C-alpha cells in the first residue's frame, strides 16, 4: 500500500466526519498560527530595536558619567556629575589613534512654544560633530555650527516630528520658538529617523551645547560645564577595543582615578547585545506560550483519534479480515493523525502570517512601527512541530487500532 493510497484513505475517512475533523484541526491551526505570529512579532521587535541602535551611527562608543556612591548606597548609572565638556575636548584633542570624532551632548527637558502650540520634549545640547557621529541628516536649513557653540547662540535644529506638532507642517526655518522662555531661531530641520523605544529621536530639539548649560539648565546646573554623555566614533570597527582603552586612560588621568572609574564606557555593540538578549528572551517566551497551545492541539488530535478507533472497531475488523496487516492499520490511523496536523499546520501558517501582518499594521505606541517578520525558519519550525505533534499523539491510538484482534473487532457492536 503506497503513501498516496494511505493519504487517500485517510482523507476519505476524515471527510466522513467533516465537522469533527475541522474542530480537531482547529487546535493545531490556532497553535501554529500563534507560534508563527508571536515569533514574527518578537522578531519584528528585535529588528526594530536593532535598526534604532544602528541608526545612531557607526562604530560608536558611549561614555557616560558613573554612579554616585553615597554611604554605601549606589545610585543609578549617570547620577554622578563627573563628565564635563572639557573631558570631551580633551578626548578630541589628545591625538588618540583610534578615535575619529567626539560628540558630547547634554540633555534636558523643556517646553517649546510656537504661536499657540507647545510641546514638552527633550532639548539636546550638541556640538557640530554630533551630526556626523550620531548619523543625523539635515533635511533643510543647516546644523549647529562651531561658531554657534562658541557664541552660545540661541539657535535650534528641530526634529522631523516637531515640524508637525509645533508648526502644523509649515516651514519652521527662520521662525522663533521659545524654549523655557528663551527665544530660539530655528535654523534647520532634521531628516526623520523613525523608530521609537528609548525616546523618539524625531521629537528632539537640538541646540548648541554651551547654550543649554548657560541659558536652559536650572538651579545648580546652570552655568555648569557638565555633559550627559559623550559619543565617540572609533576610526574602524576593529579599533573599538583600542578606542575604549584610550578613552579610559585619558579620563582616568584627567579625573585622577586610582581605584574605581567614575564613568562608564560602552560600545554600540554592547547595547545591541543587551537588546538582542532581551528581545531573544521575549521571542522565546512568546514562542513557548504558543507552543503550549500547539501541545493542547496535539492532545485534541489524540483524543479524537482514540474516539475514532473505538468507533471504527468494526471497520478495523473488516479491514483485517480482508487482508490488512497490523502495519496497514497502523499506517492508516497514523496517516489520519498526520493529515489532520499537517493540514492544520499549513492553514495555521497562513493564518499566522495574516495575523502578523495585521498586528504590524496596527499602530503601537505612537510612531513605533513593528514590522513583524514571518521567516521561512519559523514556518518550517511550526510545520515540522505540527507534524511531530501529529506523529507523537497519533502513535498510541494507531497502535491500539492495529493491535485489535480481528474476531473481537468484527463482533464489536
Amino acid at each position, binding site marked *: *500500500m503506497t503513501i498516496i493510497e494511505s493519504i487517500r*484513505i485517510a482523507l476519505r475517512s476524515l471527510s466522513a466526519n467533516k465537522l469533527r475533523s475541522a474542530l480537531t484541526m482547529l487546535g493545531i491551526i490556532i497553535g501554529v498560527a500563534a507560534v508563527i505570529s508571536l515569533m514574527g512579532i518578537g522578531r519584528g521587535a528585535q529588528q526594530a530595536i536593532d535598526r534604532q541602535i544602528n541608526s545612531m551611527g557607526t562604530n560608536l562608543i558611549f561614555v557616560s558619567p558613573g554612579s554616585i556612591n553615597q554611604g554605601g548606597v549606589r545610585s543609578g548609572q549617570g547620577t554622578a556629575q563627573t563628565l564635563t565638556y572639557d573631558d570631551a575636548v580633551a578626548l578630541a584633542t589628545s591625538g588618540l589613534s583610534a578615535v575619529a570624532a567626539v560628540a558630547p551632548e547634554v540633555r534636558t527637558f523643556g517646553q517649546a512654544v510656537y504661536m499657540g502650540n507647545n510641546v514638552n520634549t527633550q532639548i539636546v545640547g550638541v556640538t557640530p560633530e554630533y551630526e556626523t557621529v550620531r548619523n543625523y541628516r539635515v533635511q533643510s536649513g543647516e546644523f549647529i555650527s562651531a561658531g554657534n557653540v562658541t557664541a552660545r547662540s540661541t539657535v535650534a535644529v528641530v526634529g522631523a516630528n516637531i515640524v508637525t506638532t509645533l508648526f502644523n507642517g509649515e516651514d519652521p526655518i527662520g521662525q522663533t520658538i521659545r524654549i523655557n522662555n528663551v527665544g530660539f531661531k530655528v535654523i534647520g530641520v532634521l531628516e526623520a529617523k523613525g523608530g521609537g523605544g528609548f525616546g523618539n529621536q524625531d521629537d528632539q530639539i537640538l541646540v548648541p551645547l554651551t547654550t543649554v548649560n548657560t541659558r536652559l539648565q536650572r538651579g545648580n546646573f546652570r552655568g555648569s560645564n557638565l555633559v550627559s554623555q559623550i559619543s565617540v566614533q572609533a576610526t574602524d570597527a576593529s579599533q573599538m577595543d583600542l578606542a575604549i582603552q584610550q578613552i579610559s586612560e585619558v579620563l582616568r588621568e584627567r579625573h585622577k582615578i586610582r581605584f574605581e572609574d567614575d564613568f562608564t564606557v560602552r560600545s554600540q555593540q554592547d547595547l545591541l547585545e543587551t537588546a538582542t538578549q532581551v528581545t531573544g528572551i521575549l521571542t522565546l517566551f512568546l514562542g513557548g506560550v504558543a507552543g503550549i497551545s500547539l501541545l493542547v492541539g496535539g492532545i485534541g488530535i489524540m483524543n479524537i483519534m482514540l474516539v475514532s478507533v473505538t468507533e471504527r472497531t468494526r*471497520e478495523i*475488523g473488516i*479491514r483485517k479480515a*480482508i*487482508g490488512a496487516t497490523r502495519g496497514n492499520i497502523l499506517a492508516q490511523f497514523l496517516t489520519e493523525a498526520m493529515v489532520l496536523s499537517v493540514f492544520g499546520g499549513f492553514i495555521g501558517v497562513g493564518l499566522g502570517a495574516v495575523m502578523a501582518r495585521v498586528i504590524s499594521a496596527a499602530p503601537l505606541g505612537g510612531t513605533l512601527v513593528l514590522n513583524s517578520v514571518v521567516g521561512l525558519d519559523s514556518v518550517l519550525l511550526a510545520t515540522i512541530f505540527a507534524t511531530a505533534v501529529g506523529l507523537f499523539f497519533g502513535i498510541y491510538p494507531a497502535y491500539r487500532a492495529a493491535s485489535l484482534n480481528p474476531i473481537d473487532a468484527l463482533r464489536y457492536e
Partner: protein
Amino acid sequence: MIELENVYKIYRMGDSEVHALDGVSLKIEAGEWVAIVGPSGSGKSTLMNVIGCLDQPTAGSYKLDGVEVARMNDRDLARVRNRKIGFVFQTFNLLPRTTALANVELPLIYAGVRDRRPRAVEALERVGLGDRLHHKPNELSGGQQQRVAIARALVTNPAIILADEPTGNLDSKSGAEIMELFHQMHTQQGLTIVMVTHDPDIAAQCERVIHIRDGKIIGDEHNGDRRKVPGIAEQMKPSDSVILESVAAGATR
C-alpha cells in the same frame, strides 16, 4: 486443500476453560461445497475463524494448501486472508459511507493491485450489481449489500469462500438469490465454499454437511456433487438424514 488435524481452541474464562474446538480433524478438498452446521455455541464459528485464518488454534495442526497456518505471523496470516480466502458475513460487514465500488476495491488495495477499478467493476457485474457501483450500503437492500460483500470476496480470485450465515439476515427470496449466486460460483468457477449455517434448508443445498457440537465433529455426510445437477429449485427439499433433523431441532430450540 484444508487439512485440520486434532485442532483445539481453548478460551480461558476466569478460572474455567472453554473448549471451543475439542480435537477437530477435518479435510476439505479443493472444489468442495461444505456446510458446517450446529447449534449456537457448538464451535462452528470458531472452526470457521480458524479455517479463515482470523484465529489460530491453541493446539493441533492446520494446513492450508500444505502450509502450516498455526506457525504464521500476523503479516502472513493477513496475506492468506487477502489472497486465498474470501469472507462473506451474516451482517455483510461493508464499510459504511463508502460506495459499493470502493468496498470491493478494498481487498485489492491491501493486495497491492494497481489497476483496481476494472476488476472491482467486473466483480460487481458478476453479482448483478453493475448498475449500483456508486451506491453506498445504506442505499442498498440487504440482498444487494450481501451481493456487494460477495463481490468483495470474489475480487481477489480466492480459492476458498468462507460464508458465515450468509442468508441469516435476509428474507427468503433474497436468501434464495444469494444461494443461487453461491451455486453459480461453485459450478462455474469451481470455488471451494465453506458455509456456516443452522438452517437445514441451506445445508441441504451443499454437497457435504459437517455437524459439530460441543467443539467436536459428530457427523459428516455427502449429498452428492451439486455441479452435476443443473437446477437449484429441486435441491430445496431437506435431506432425510436423522442427524440433520436432530440438529434442526437443536437450532429451533
